[in-house]
């Protein structure tokens, strides 16, 4: 009897303490309002990450949070709010109090791109760009064997319209748009298949189930080194140090630049002083060799920028997306694929 009661007591205390832990770990979008403070930061800061735990952006955000703790003196912690193609997490931050204690860390896609496809409870202007984190370049990947150069692929594609199959993560996402852009410029017809993540896409390439795909630098490097795949071209301004033998699309005569940029945002209306302090702190972290070493292992290129530059970048991206999606045949195709 004593044994049993004691255990139930322990279990009860344990469950309650879990409850309290949950209460103390900062706020979520549905919690109460936070007070405005002049000095910053005075308590823990929450970074919302719109992808599930473990992905590239998530790892980056956690690394940043760890270093931010040292830089700002207050705990920064990551909360995953995945779903809706980056929109759920983005919406939450857009709607939260603009006091600098709720931030978003993720790819620009969620901010500038998704608004074209869905009815969103926010506009891209509802988020204040704070600092850029990284840029991730992508390239065209094929399984080793059938195609050795970009020309081979294009030639095959022209001679066999519709036979080539490409894969993409997230239909409608930036890589997808750029894939279609490439196909249009090359004059090749290929069918696209959506996958719900990088790993299934890579598995499909390695297994020979699809012909090609645009993937991020890290995947390209890993599988090229192991001899499984060949990167036919990189969509970067110049050749990557880690893949010096891979030509850029520019060299081959295509006007393709595909990069996924990740940055930190705050809700619009965040005080200027807070935003500036964050920008300064984050840029310092990006330049810290300890951080850079770990982040670069992911294949990321760190690109610290000023707030003004970042803001202009977001605006330019938005206008670029607008033009492609509303004004060009590529946009038509994408929208058609999505309505299907």
């Amino acid at each position, binding site marked *: 009897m004593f*044994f*049993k009661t004691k*255990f*139930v007591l322990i*279990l*009860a205390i344990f*469950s309650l303490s*879990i*409850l309290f832990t*949950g209460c103390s770990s900062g706020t*979520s979008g*549905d919690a109460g309002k936070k007070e405005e403070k002049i000095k910053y930061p005075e308590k823990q800061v929450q970074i919302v990450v719109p992808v*599930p*735990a*473990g*992905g*590239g952006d998530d*790892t980056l955000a*956690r690394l940043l*949070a760890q270093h931010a703790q040292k830089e700002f003196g207050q705990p920064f912690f*990551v*909360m*995953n*709010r995945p*779903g*809706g*193609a980056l*929109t*759920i997490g983005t919406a939450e931050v857009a709607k939260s109090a603009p006091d600098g204690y709720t931030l978003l860390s993720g790819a620009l896609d969620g901010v500038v791109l998704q608004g074209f496809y*869905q*009815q969103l409870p926010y506009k891209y202007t509802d988020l204040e760009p704070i600092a850029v984190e990284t840029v991730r370049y992508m390239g065209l990947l094929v399984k080793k064997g059938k195609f050795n150069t970009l020309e081979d692929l294009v030639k095959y594609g022209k001679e066999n319209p*519709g036979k080539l*199959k490409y894969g993409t993560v997230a*239909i*409608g996402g930036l890589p997808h748009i750029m894939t279609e852009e490439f196909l249009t410029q090359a004059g090749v017809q290929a*069918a696209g*298949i*959506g*996958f719900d993540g990088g*790993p*299934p896409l*890579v*598995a*499909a390439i*390695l*297994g020979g*189930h*699809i012909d090609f795909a645009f993937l991020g630098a*890290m995947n390209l*490097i*890993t599988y090229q*080194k*192991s001899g*499984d795949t060949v990167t036919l071209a990189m969509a970067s301004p110049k050749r990557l140090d880690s893949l010096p033998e891979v030509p850029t699309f520019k060299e081959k005569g295509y006007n393709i630049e595909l990069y996924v940029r990740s940055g930190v945002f705050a809700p619009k209306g965040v005080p200027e002083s807070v935003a500036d302090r964050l920008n300064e702190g984050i840029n310092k972290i990006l330049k810290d060799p300890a951080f850079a*070493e*770990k982040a670069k*292992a*992911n294949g990321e290129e760190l690109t610290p920028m000023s707030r003004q530059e970042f803001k202009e970048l977001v605006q330019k991206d938005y206008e670029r997306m607008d033009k492609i999606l509303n004004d060009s045949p590529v946009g038509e195709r994408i929208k058609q694929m*999505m*309505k299907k």
Partner: protein
Amino acid sequence: MEYVDNLIKGFILVGAPEKLIFCFVGVFVGTIVGVLPGLGPVGAMALLFPLSLEVDPLSGIILLAGIYYGSMYGGSTTSILINVPGEATSMMTCIDGYQMSRKGRAGAALAVSAIGSLVAGTVGVAVVMFFAPWLGRAALALGPPEFFAITFCGLVVLSNVTGGSTLKAFLGVILGMMLSTVGLDVLTGSSRFTFGTLELSKGIDIVPIMMGLFGMSEIFSTVLKPYSVKDVVKVKFRDLFPRLDELKASVKPIMRGTFLGLPIGMLPCPGAFLSTIVSYKMERSLSKNPENFGKGAIEGVAGPESANNAASTTGMIPLLSLGLPFTASMTVLLGAFMVHGVNPGPLFMKQHADLYWGVIAALYIGNVMLLLLNYPLVGVFASLATVSPKIIMPIVTGMVFIGAYTVNNSVFDLWLTLVFGLVGYVMKEHLDFKMPPLIIGFILGGVLEKSLRQGLGMVDGNFLVMLQRPVTAVCMAIAAIILIFQILRFFYNKSKVSGSEGAAL
């Protein structure tokens, strides 16, 4: 004998006290996480991620990996004690495990589950150790058409896994499949069944559904019909551990479960989940007393738990051999590798041999630690079953809600849990619907639909071309045969019942 050399080196690395401590912390946290319903290894791994960054790569990885398979051990505890699955993979354990608990055999169920997990886990690590590179590559040959065929076959074969009316089982499966379509579609990005809300566009998570259907419905049942503690057979100390005949009966199911779980775990589909269902079905079909299943047959606990552990262990193969994480937990592990500057790709074994073999050694050690942790706790946990429902149910309610909340930090999920609780209650008490088919339909249905459309995309919409692939053809054939057989049997039974009117086929 290179393997033995490398393994010994691995053990030496892991033998350092600090590594062992991390291993222990990992499996301990993992067990707790597994016991708490709803809170899964992913959440705990993400929480401890910063800790793993502060230490050297091997310790960090051991810590996170320990959480991962520790949770596989712990998941069965709540299934057996309170009929709430700790994870989807523990769902099948609920069926017979909870009944055993009601009969006072909770200890036996828990103990057998722990033993089976150890056996399966160890065999699994051995398979990983010897065959990871080849198995990883072999699994690549399976693409979307194969996944479609496998899940289709699985749905047909397994929908009626818990017996009872086939019709109701299929209805449950279809309902589950319908639920799985809610949200943003992978292939076209269009919103389905979201009613315009952002919350629904991320789809419905399995956890609120399970917490609701199993947990809340059980709570509602107990509230309306409380079981008196006297109804539960008094647990004597002897009863905390399995009888000899129970142990003997478990041996074959554990073996079968292990060997079932090993291959299924490697595939990029919900391998561990699928393997538990297949194992349960297999045990039921092979048993000499199938009517015991659902009432507390120890085979129904031993088999699925072993399959679960085996599959979870081989689930690491795609990550370790190719660098591809196919489940959320593996993705977090991948993140941990990457921030330490290690890139687990096909060259991982060669480039970071120390790390690789250290992880393998830690897996062995961790499994043993888990048995040592769990076995003594069996007595403690088993005595929980004798606690009066007045105390237990509120705690369970709290745990269920905490579990449902931690998935996405969303209050919406809590409402979902409540709704599914009501649905589950009605299903159970008034409609005689069983729960597992719905969950099966939900989990497999998502994979099924996605794979079908991806596969069709690969062959320009020509389904027949998909059937030309060997694995696909075989699976579809099996499914077709079984479907036809079931339909024929339905009509045969009907004609038997309608007497000598002779309206057979």
